[in-house]
């Protein structure tokens, strides 16, 4: 079956790949672009481990048809750091022990970034709502919520 050419922006860089029909954005990112930061969890849109941002809004890349992102801007956890410098959210996750096995972390980071980009000073309830589609089986969520609140409390700029 013929492949389809697909162009989009990945963490600020233009990329072009050829996808099979029905390929998910997650598969395109992991297998064709080589970005392994979005994780395959359930493949059903139920766990949030594959969360990335499309034009700033969070989506579940495992149930996003790759062809639907043509011309759009995709941001993943791999693009958070600036050279060796971690993103403030990543630092806050480390300092708050918000990652144990780490499988949910990239999705949690992107869900949190989507929140803080729009609302730099969220309440605890707003943080809980922002990560309500992301499942973590290790931490019990408290360290993650605290990390996001801590990052927001630093009054950092979210670019």
């Amino acid at each position, binding site marked *: *079956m013929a492949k*389809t050419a697909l162009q989009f922006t990945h963490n600020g860089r233009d990329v072009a790949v050829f996808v*099979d*029909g*029905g*390929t*998910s954005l997650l598969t395109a990112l992991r297998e064709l672009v080589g970005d392994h930061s979005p994780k395959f969890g359930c*493949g*059903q*849109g139920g766990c*949030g481990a594959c*969360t990335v941002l*499309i034009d700033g*809004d*969070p*989506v*579940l890349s*495992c*149930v*996003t*048809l790759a*062809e*639907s992102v043509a011309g759009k801007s995709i941001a993943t956890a791999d693009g958070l750091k600036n050279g060796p410098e971690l993103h403030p959210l990543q630092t806050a996750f480390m300092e708050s022990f918000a990652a144990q096995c780490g499988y949910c972390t990239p999705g949690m980071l992107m*869900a949190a970034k*989507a*929140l803080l980009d729009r609302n730099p000073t969220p309440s605890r309830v707003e943080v*809980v*709502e*922002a*990560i*309500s*589609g*992301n499942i973590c089986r290790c931490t019990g969520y408290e360290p993650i919520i605290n990390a996001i609140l801590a990052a927001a409390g630093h009054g950092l700029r979210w670019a």
Partner: protein
Amino acid sequence: MPVTVKTCATPAEAAAALSSDRGARYIAGGTLVMRAVNEGDVGITTLVRLADRALAQIRVSGARVSLGAEVTLLAILRERELSYLHPVVRSIGGPAVRTMGTVGGNLFAAPPFGDLTAALLALDAMVSVQSGYGARDMALEEFLAGRDRAAGTLALGVSFERPASPDAFRYRKIARVKPKGASVVSIAAHVPNMGGRVSNVRIAYGGMAATAIRAKAAERALEGRALDEAGIAAAVAAAAEGTSPATDAIASAWYRREVVGVHLRRLLLGLEA
């Protein structure tokens, strides 16, 4: 197995593509269809989509509201004119599901999903559909009754009258997981108050049958009554009449029938969940 993706220029072209291929499914946000594709559903051989955003328009004209089928739940949440639908949309998914999930897709969501459809049923929404015979409007209830047999029909959007007052439209979703999860039951009620009594009552459930349904017996029992304990008693007693809920991982059919009246009572009296 790879599937064929057909990107169409117009709804008519998409409807034609759907009706000419038994293995074709329309895909918008992807939260329903891509799940099936990822599972390897061999019944899906073609994905049909629209190239432009023609079906993503929200129109508010006086009291009449039109939502295109590809309007996302997030777009509803960002529209101040639709504030009465915000509690409904907030009860669905996490933010990522709301970015992707669409009005049209929700019409096809099987229980325990499809809470927005229950709300639209209580708002007496009309559905605009495109088939090989052209475009036409039909009542949402009629659409849902024939939904699973209507291969080749494309939902273009929904339209409904805005509730007369904020208190005239009420919604509650009962889930086991906090802050949110799939529905044990969702209840939407249109109960406009006319001089202390409600008239033109519409009550709809999600999760109480194979599609969202109207609670006709409860509606009849509530029509013309006051929203107090005595006024709602007959409606609460009839709450489970005509329902056929499923037993699933969220709740048993027995449990759903037992609790629907409890939650209907709380909704009508304005009590905490």
